[in-house]
């Protein structure tokens, strides 16, 4: 007898067993909807039923259940066609690389980013399954209607329990191996490589979302989904202290580094169980720094991951706890300089320390203290957490540390400098270190632009402790004490209810220019204040601004006579709201929030329906992501994922280090078109969003570019006015003149801001050859050069307001609907 299942391999039988789902009076053949139905029939059936009769009749459904890269080619091609990848050659490579090779490197980088996030998600999931069991339910709270969309967009299902998550993550892991194969052994075209890079990007969001969801649903991280919308304006409150000046060093201080919060979580458990809340300082740097306040409001965020060394050089911690990490320096050596002890957590936190996971906490404690060990390695988070607390208390009690590790005598150390200027050469921010050697205030100035990368110290032939000098000089100027700010903890997801409000403000009306999302690791040269100023610029102009990742702490540092930025704006996801989603993994809330925006209007299914959702939001929702400080692989992957979702990304400062961009060519009219969604007629549209991944150099360029990228071909009248005004104002303010293409976005004088209307109409007449009569446009100059009346112009250029349109042939509605 033949083994079961063999029969399905024969083509004939497959046909005979048509898989039909009935919705209303409509029959859908699942084989036509999914590429390979085997193993996913139940998922496909559910989705088709959820879509309902009307949708199924409107378009031919196509589901990318547990998608491979090529399953979403339909959409990727739209993007890659319009925005051809552009590579900047890496200065260190001697020969000019072929494009396809660069594409291959781009895929490698994206895979690395994906890999990091996947590993972390897997670790966390395994731990959660151990503790809670596979059936542990995942509930995002009553304010969230559509839960885990980064996952469902690719897999076709929400992760309703840990078992679902396991399935989703296994899928992503399989995908990664497939992608890696191409990234290292593939010989493919640029487009094929980039398609895969986009896929890796999308998978990165899946991984981040799984980690983020476990945090919220199993470890009680603050989650707005559990709160009613009425609380959003001030929740979570502005109460989290940020900065090194916020630490009370008379208490034992633990600083957590890295991106795994588990040791911190158990440390806090221990602190709470023993009533030690007021007796100990729990601080974090980088990702974990933003995690702690979400379950413990006594937690303090010291700085972003990249600047971690700042904290040790300032001598703040008694104990440092490191997990697998975004750190690239020898933490043990750094800790030793200031007599702090290290608890390295996990299997990957290679630190040369002895693994003591099998011993009891008290034994380890005794051992470390008596023998003055530099630290230990522990793979059990409960133990690591408890040990950290006990160790910190013991160190403090024994008075094992100096009060202050700053240099008392700056002159002496500085005098070793021979002015070779090697330090200046290696400094990424080109700080004039040697010139500042005998001037405390100049050294203190360097502090503001120094990311404590340590390159200068490593380069110095005389062994000058440059970073100590900078730190100590800054301290004498009060910069350490003054490093003290307030922010809101991360809040997790944005709800559909907020989008309902937002829709009135930015989709139907034009009260705000759009939704600006600032993300990043906070590793950029230049002032930390710039990113806050970008946020403030858009907040003042009524946008919704969200922050996630380590930049949130930098945004917190904005302070003026009205208080901290987080105090000045409400926390709700509405116009003039400043939302902090949370650290690193919370970046997954950005696309999820935007998908919700799409769903509130459209009611499409967000399950394995990538093309339709992306096509929808790409052409309609005025949202942009600013990635500030972008050099890491994680961010490379994140950018790719965002682009695939149809969300334009601006990278800066010095964004040209990013290696690969997706730029549009506004002058190539053949690229800018859409299908009328009903007749299928191809129509020329405005060149927007003009780019999908674009570098900028300065804060001003970032703002102007961001404003420019808010145009959408399907925007309605008032939002068209709002985005045009945003662009015009920014260009005029920062560069003194309007952009050379603003007129491409005008289709009626009603879209010109009233106070500029007369001026802009005059310009249309004088500079662009339009015919103006009083305060009205009489005839417009079409891009072909023809002068035509407005009726004709509106017919030939752009989509009629409110007309359903699409970039994907499949999504043209089927003709002759009954």
């Amino acid at each position, binding site marked *: 007898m033949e083994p079961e299942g063999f029969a399905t391999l024969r083509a004939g039988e497959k046909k005979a067993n048509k898989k039909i789902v009935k919705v209303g009076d409509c029959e859908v053949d699942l084989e036509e909807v999914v590429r390979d139905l085997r193993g996913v029939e139940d998922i496909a059936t559910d989705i088709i039923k959820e879509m309902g009769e009307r949708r199924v009749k409107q378009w031919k459904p196509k589901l990318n259940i547990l998608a491979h890269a090529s399953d979403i080619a339909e959409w990727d091609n739209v993007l890659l066609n319009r925005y051809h990848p552009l590579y900047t050659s890496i200065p260190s490579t001697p020969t000019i690389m072929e494009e396809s090779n660069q594409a291959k490197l781009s895929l490698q980088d994206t895979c690395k980013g994906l890999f990091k996030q996947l590993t972390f998600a897997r670790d966390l999931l395994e731990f959660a399954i151990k503790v809670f069991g596979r059936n542990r339910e995942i509930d995002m709270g009553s304010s969230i209607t559509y839960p885990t969309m980064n996952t469902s967009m690719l897999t076709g299902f929400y992760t309703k329990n840990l078992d679902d998550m396991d399935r989703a993550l296994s899928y992503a892991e399989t995908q990664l191996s497939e992608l890696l194969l191409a990234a290292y052994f593939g010989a493919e075209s640029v487009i094929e490589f980039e398609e895969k890079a986009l896929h890796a990007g999308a998978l990165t969001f899946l991984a981040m979302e799984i980690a983020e969801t476990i945090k919220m649903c199993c470890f009680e991280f603050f989650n707005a989904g559990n709160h009613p919308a009425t609380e959003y304006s001030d929740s979570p409150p502005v109460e989290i202290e940020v900065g090194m000046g916020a630490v009370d060093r008379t208490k034992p201080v633990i600083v957590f580094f890295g991106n795994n919060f588990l040791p911190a979580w158990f440390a806090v458990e221990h602190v709470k169980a023993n009533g030690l809340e007021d007796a100990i300082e729990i601080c974090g740097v980088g990702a974990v720094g933003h995690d702690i306040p979400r379950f413990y409001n006594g937690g303090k965020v010291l700085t972003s991951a990249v600047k971690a060394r700042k904290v040790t050089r300032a001598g703040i911690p008694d104990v440092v706890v490191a997990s697998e990490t975004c750190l690239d320096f020898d933490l043990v050596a750094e800790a030793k300089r200031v007599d702090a002890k290290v608890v390295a957590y996990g299997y990957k936190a290679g630190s040369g320390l002895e693994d003591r996971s099998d011993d009891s906490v008290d034994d380890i404690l005794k051992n470390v203290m008596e023998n003055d060990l530099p630290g230990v390695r522990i793979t059990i988070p409960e133990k690591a957490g408890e040990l950290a607390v006990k160790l910190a208390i013991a160190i403090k009690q024994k008075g094992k540390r100096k009060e202050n590790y700053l240099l008392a005598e700056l002159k002496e150390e500085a005098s070793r400098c021979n002015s070779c200027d090697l330090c200046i050469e290696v400094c990424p921010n080109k700080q004039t270190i040697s010139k500042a050697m005998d001037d405390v205030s100049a050294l203190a100035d360097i502090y503001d632009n120094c990311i404590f990368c340590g390159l200068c110290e490593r380069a110095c032939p005389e062994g000058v402790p440059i970073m100590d000098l900078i730190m100590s000089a800054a301290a004498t100027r009060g910069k350490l004490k003054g490093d003290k700010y307030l922010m809101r903890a991360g809040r997790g997801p944005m709800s559909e209810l907020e989008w309902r409000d937002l829709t009135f403000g930015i989709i*139907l009306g034009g009260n705000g220019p759009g939704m600006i999302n600032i993300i990043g690791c906070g590793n950029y040269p230049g002032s930390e204040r710039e990113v806050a100023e970008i946020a403030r610029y858009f907040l003042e102009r*009524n946008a919704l601004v969200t922050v996630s990742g380590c930049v949130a702490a930098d945004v917190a540092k904005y302070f003026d006579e009205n208080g901290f930025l987080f105090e000045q704006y409400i926390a709700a996801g509405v116009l003039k709201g400043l939302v902090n989603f949370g650290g690193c993994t919370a970046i997954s809330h950005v696309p999820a929030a935007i998908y919700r925006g799409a769903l509130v*209007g459209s009611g499409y299914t967000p399950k394995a329906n990538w093309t339709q959702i992306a096509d929808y939001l790409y052409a309609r929702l005025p949202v942009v992501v600013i990635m500030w400080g972008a050099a890491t692989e994680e961010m490379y992957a994140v950018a790719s994922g965002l682009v695939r979702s149809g969300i334009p990304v601006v990278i800066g400062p010095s964004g040209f280090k990013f290696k690969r961009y997706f730029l549009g060519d506004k002058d190539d009219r053949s690229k800018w078109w859409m299908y009328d*969604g009903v007749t299928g007629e191809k129509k020329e549209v405005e060149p927007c969003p003009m780019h999908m991944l674009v570098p900028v150099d300065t804060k001003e360029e970032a703002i102007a570019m961001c404003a420019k990228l808010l145009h959408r071909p399907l925007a309605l009248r008032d939002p068209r006015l709002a985005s045009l005004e945003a662009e015009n104002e920014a260009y005029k303010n920062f560069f003194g003149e309007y952009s050379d293409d603003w007129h491409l976005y005008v289709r009626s004088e009603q879209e010109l801001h009233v106070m500029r209307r007369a001026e802009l109409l005059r310009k249309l007449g004088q500079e662009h050859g339009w015919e103006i009569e009083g305060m009205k446009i009489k005839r417009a100059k079409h891009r072909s050069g023809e002068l035509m009346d407005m*009726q004709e112009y509106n017919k030939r250029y752009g989509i009629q307001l*409110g007309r*359903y349109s699409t970039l994907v042939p499949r999504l043209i509605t089927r003709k002759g*609907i009954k």
Partner: protein
Amino acid sequence: MTKAKLTEEEEEQEQARDRQEIWDALPKGKVYHVPTNPDDFFTGISYDISPRQAGQRVRKHDMYCELGGPKQRYSSFFFIEVVKGEDKIEDGRVEVIGPEIKEIEGQSLPFGFWIRYYGKELTEDYLDLLTRWTYFALEEGEGWMLLNTRDTIWLRLHKKDADKHDFEHLGQAMINLCKIQFPLVEKADAKILIATEDLGGSKHTKGIIDNVCVPYWERVDKRARAFSDDDADTFYGCTICQTFAPSHVCAVAPDRPPYCGIITWIGAKVMCDLDPYGYIFEMPKGECVDPEGGEYTGINEKIYEKSNRTYKRVVMYSSITYPQTNCGCFEAAIFYIPDVDGLGLVDRRYGGETPLGVTFSKLAGLISGGQQNHGYCGISSRTPRSRKFVRADGGWNRIVWIPKEYKQILTESIPAEMFDKIATEEDCIDPKELKEFLKRVHHPVVTLWKDGETPDPLNLPPPNTDWDQEEEKKARGKGKDILVIPPP
């Protein structure tokens, strides 16, 4: 009829004469002539006016000066009138009576803005729009806080922006904003009265309110209220939301604001003229085939055409039979509760569960997307104020459940005898309990139940399908059975 009309006209003329007299008799102030040439409409204005300034709040300690509001016991006015007779207005004349802004730092004073518009085709029907556009100078004006309207108006100016402002330019901004948006306005003038003690204080402004504003408002409001679907030959269609929900069309009628709440019938009418390639189009009513439910041949035809031949019928005042479609962005929703054969109402502020067992958000997700969902309908939060609200389904007598806060807001629209019969989440959410509640309070829907005991729910057809004729008759019959039109 003619007689009544005559008196109305006479009343109007008499009022106009009185107003002119009072206008002329106002104390003399400083007279400015602001630009009347469109190119210079905003020349000299150094503060920003744009939507992003909207909704600004000025706290007490940030305040440079305050006009009107509770401290002045709301004795100030913002009065806009349409003047007949071209010669009555000197275009661009702005008269400031009383001190300038820079002279009233730290003070709180009563005030009056009196703005007059003239245009050959301008009538009082446009008053709402004229008001909206004039208000923009404050509402979207940098530094200003504007609360309330008419004689409850309350303004504050922020310290940090004070040096950008004076009344001359405020007057200029107000009338020119209106002019640039609305070409029907040919001439405009304004008097700005800052009623210090020596100018009579709030007694002065109060006198104007009583003798000028209130009679005018009462008259135009009465007329606007009386204007109903039957007075309009054409309704207006809007397909903005088609971009979210292909095949969705709104029919906007005097008694039927769209669910987005951003457009009114008169607003649509004006938009249609101003922005002919926009998204608003005319919908000639055609013949009325169902006065109760509000179904018209012309509307049905247009809906069919504009929905890309998807929907053939719309019953404007029903949420059960052939209701209007919607995308997802509505402020409130009506839903059919089969367990009691009644209708519930919920708005987006309410985060809890409804008797359907879902929250507003979930409900909205289910009924959005431009489908015709018999039994469900997204509405504007003000829709229930319409005198024709769900009339085909039995009007207010069919409403059985509203969240407490929303019910409070609707107090004036709910017929008094119905108020206590409508349950809120505090009374019950569970349909079983709701049933008991309705029996206890003798809610009219109980009369639709078999023996007043067992609800006999309707058989709602699936979305986008036609009703079975018998079922439709039954559904409409029920509506008719319990409809009591509330007294006007």
